[in-house]
């Protein structure tokens, strides 16, 4: 696997294998000495056209744990803000010897564009492209589900509910693609404007009522961050009505079974899509997700950088 641009770059075997490697690396991360020599001499560039300190730091620590050199290329402090094209930036990074480009970009398809271009010889890892995909997030979510629910490699029968702005969410798309690949059942819930009915063509059940969706007794409830900055007009009900209809808290939290896993890709808007009680509930796996993000990104770096590319 040279690039990880989309969950569609994986098949069931490579996905399970990546998750197994991630699980081993999660154990490594519990050791006292966490440094591994695997990527000595390799250069990883974090090319972030969108600010995301959390994802950037996660990739940075992952690369450093594997002994790679890490360069952060931040749009707000570089020539990127001066209008340099992606091509010229890529050629520059190639000339500097980048072995992997980890890219976050506001436009859907940007990572695939870079990976399929002849501008670079190295690998591309998609750290989020527009509303399209965020594959490492989906992998870390799947790893968290495996650990919490003791799934092994069997996701059959697992019911996952994703709630919020599905239309604009790369986290939702990657999770849908990966969970479907692994054999889980996925349903989505949110207001009609953010969860158009065509989404069902991705193979998911669509709900426009949170309580009805919860009545199906999902094993995992994944709340998405409300991204106000992505909204154009008319898509969005008022904040108070959003909380009333779409927030996880109160009676909805109380009604969840003891084994249900609450997930959120972060950063959370506490009191908005998720109540403080839900965020801090023992059923919440939010911090485990963050920890697993490190292991998954190490596994993805190791996999893309090894093998006869």
């Amino acid at each position, binding site marked *: 696997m040279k690039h990880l641009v989309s969950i569609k770059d994986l098949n069931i075997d490579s996905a399970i294998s990546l998750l197994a*490697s991630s699980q*081993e690396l999660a154990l490594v991360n519990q050791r006292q000495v966490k440094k591994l*020599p*695997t990527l000595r001499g390799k250069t990883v560039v974090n090319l972030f056209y969108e600010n995301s300190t959390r994802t950037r730091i996660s990739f940075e620590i992952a690369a450093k744990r594997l002994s790679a050199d890490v360069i952060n290329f931040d749009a707000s402090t570089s020539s990127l803000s001066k209008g340099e094209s992606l091509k010229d930036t890529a050629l520059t990074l190639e000339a500097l010897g980048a072995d992997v480009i980890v890219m976050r970009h506001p436009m859907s398809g940007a990572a695939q564009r870079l990976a399929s271009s002849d501008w670079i010889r190295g690998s591309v890892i998609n750290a989020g492209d527009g509303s399209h995909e965020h594959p490492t997030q989906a992998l870390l979510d799947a790893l968290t589900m495996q650990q919490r629910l003791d799934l092994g490699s069997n996701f059959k029968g697992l019911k996952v509910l994703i709630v919020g702005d599905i239309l604009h969410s790369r986290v939702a798309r990657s999770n849908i693609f990966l969970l479907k690949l692994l054999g889980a059942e996925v349903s989505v819930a949110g207001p009609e404007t953010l969860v158009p009915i065509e989404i069902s063509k991705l193979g998911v059940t669509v709900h426009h009522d949170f309580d009805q969706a919860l009545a199906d007794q999902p094993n995992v409830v994944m709340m998405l961050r409300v991204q106000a900055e992505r909204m154009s007009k008319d898509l969005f009900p008022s904040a108070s009505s959003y909380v009333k209809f779409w927030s996880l808290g109160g009676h909805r939290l109380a009604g969840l079974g003891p084994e249900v896993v609450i997930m959120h890709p972060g950063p959370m808007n506490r009191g908005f899509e998720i109540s403080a009680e839900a965020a801090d509930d023992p059923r919440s796996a939010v911090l485990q997700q963050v920890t697993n993000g490190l292991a998954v990104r190490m596994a993805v770096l*190791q*996999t893309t950088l*090894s*093998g*006869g590319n």
Partner: protein
Amino acid sequence: MTDRTVLSELDILRALKRIAHEILEANSGPENLLIVGIPTRGAPLAERISKILKEIEPGHSFESGVLDITLYRDDQDAASRQLGHTSIPVSGVHDKTVVLVDDVLFSGRTIRAALDALTEFGRPRQVKLAVLVDRGHRELPIRPDFVGKNLPTAISEHVAVNLVEIDGVDQVVISE
């Protein structure tokens, strides 16, 4: 392609028994031993040796472990490998005699990686190496302490160790 069986099921059993005895002899007894297998086929071999050791010294419990070396290889570019499982007993490696176990000793690079990997867990008193087959052609100054069979081979030949736990049969086969 011609296949030639060089060790049978019985040959393998005899070799492992002999290795177990040699380990005890070299260690002057069963104390402070940790048998660590290198995946894939070193791991079941290490378990078998531990089991034989227990048969020889029934009053003693022997610890064993598994050490995956994928992340420590010096040929990361060569092939894409899934990580294997690593498990070292909670008592750790400190001040123990660690016996690394692998199926075939060839270039020595796997063992070099294993020594690095082992270091992450602490400082053993000494590290020994046991292999079922030593086929020569070393590329590093590494030498086994316990050998099931020395097997002179041509570099073009392929040595395959099959074990019941993984392959359904016990045998060592050379093919061209």
